[in-house]
């Protein structure tokens, strides 16, 4: 296999990697916010449930979560799954997992907001919703950006776990080529792809952080 073909093959796998990455972010970022509400809720039951959910998601390997999400519905509930469920299951498991991490990040951000901001808004007559979305959330986002960046970079690398459910992303492609060519070169090239992707992600996040730096 010549270099060009190898890059082409890896490039194909890379598209899947990026797909998993983007879809996971798009869904888990807002879901994490909702979960963080549950985690901070005054309702004791809701709080306990979300706390347990988060601890399971963070305390068990993502690989296992992928297996459970994909095979669970059939083996536990006897549901017949459509064939497109494979990719959906990957995204679902990633989203459920990352939302738990993001929830904890949001929570730390929200809890670090000074009480004065809530009180100022309340005295001015803002409703709770207005206070949260206009005053608190924009400031929280700025505060949690560094942690979000960290998770995002971890996500890039975690995408390789998708192969547990037979989704062939870049790292799997690299391993396949490595096996058939009996050389570790494709793995190194995949490493390079990851590195560059991560640099790009870090750069993107830095741009966002800088944009948010218009105030202090």
């Amino acid at each position, binding site marked *: 296999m010549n270099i060009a073909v190898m890059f082409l093959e890896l490039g194909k796998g890379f598209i899947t990697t990026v797909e998993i990455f983007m879809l996971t972010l798009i869904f888990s970022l807002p879901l994490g916010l909702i979960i963080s509400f549950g985690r901070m809720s005054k309702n004791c039951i809701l709080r306990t449930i979300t706390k347990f959910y988060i601890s399971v998601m963070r305390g068990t390997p993502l690989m296992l979560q992928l297996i459970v999400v994909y095979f669970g519905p059939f083996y536990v509930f006897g549901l017949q799954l459509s064939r497109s469920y494979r990719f959906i299951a990957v995204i679902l498991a990633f989203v459920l997992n990352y939302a738990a991490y993001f929830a904890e990040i949001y929570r730390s951000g929200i809890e670090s907001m*000074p009480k*004065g*901001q809530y*009180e*100022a808004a*309340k*005295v*001015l*007559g*803002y*409703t709770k919703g*207005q206070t949260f979305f*206009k*005053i608190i959330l*924009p*400031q929280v986002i*700025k505060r949690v950006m560094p942690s979000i960046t960290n998770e995002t970079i971890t996500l890039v690398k975690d995408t390789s776990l998708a192969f547990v459910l037979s989704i062939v992303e870049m790292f799997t492609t690299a391993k396949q080529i490595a096996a058939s060519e009996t050389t570790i070169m494709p793995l190194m090239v995949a490493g390079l792809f990851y590195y560059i992707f991560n640099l790009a992600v870090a750069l993107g996040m830095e741009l966002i952080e800088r944009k948010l730096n*218009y*105030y*202090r």
Partner: protein
Amino acid sequence: MKILEINHMKKSFDKLEVIKDISLSVNEGEVLSIIGPSGSGKSTVLRCAAMLEKMNSGDLIYLGEYAAHNNTEGKSVYMAKKELRRFHKYYGLVFQNFNLFPHYTVLKNITDAPMTVDKVSKKEAEERAMVLLKKLGLEDKKEAYPYQLSGGQQQRVSIARALALQPKILFFDEPTSALDPELTGEVLKVIKELAKEKMTMIIVTHEMQFAKELSDRIIFMENGKIQEEGTPEQIFSTENTRVKDFIGKFAG
């Protein structure tokens, strides 16, 4: 006309009874100062009046309307949440630490509440804001963010923010104690101007000189009770040794 009336307010935090039985009222155009040692409950009175805390017992009345009233068991019963919303526009509160919204420009800090809460048009909100900024000498700062301002400027913006909702009464909780002595002057000047324009105000302050000059009436609080109440002349020439001692400390 009475802008604010508080009858028999009591407030405890857990077991700690902070406000024991306080009644006061403020007439239109009147400036009331509250002085007293640390921990006597001055801030708590203001926070209850601004409904940041709920009283345990007592009436809270704005312009004759009951926001809360004592029920037969002597417990404060507040109006429904929806009704209470109406009361927010009667008063404004200026915090010791300003509590400006750091992600908004000065202009947006002032216009956002009228637009969001009172549904004032953007145009009108900005016009109002510019009038206020001019009055407070901050015209050239409208595009600045709070972090770019000195403490005194931040406090003036927070006064403008409160005024933009056109409240009937303004509460100040030690508006200058987070400021350097030199910046204090700017803010005190603004409050004096407001007093001249007959803005109704309650001011918790440590600046005795200022309270003396400005107030129509002064309340001296201690241990959650009003110990002495009167005109500045009465307070500053009182025979009550407690009050005398307290004021004496500040004379320098």
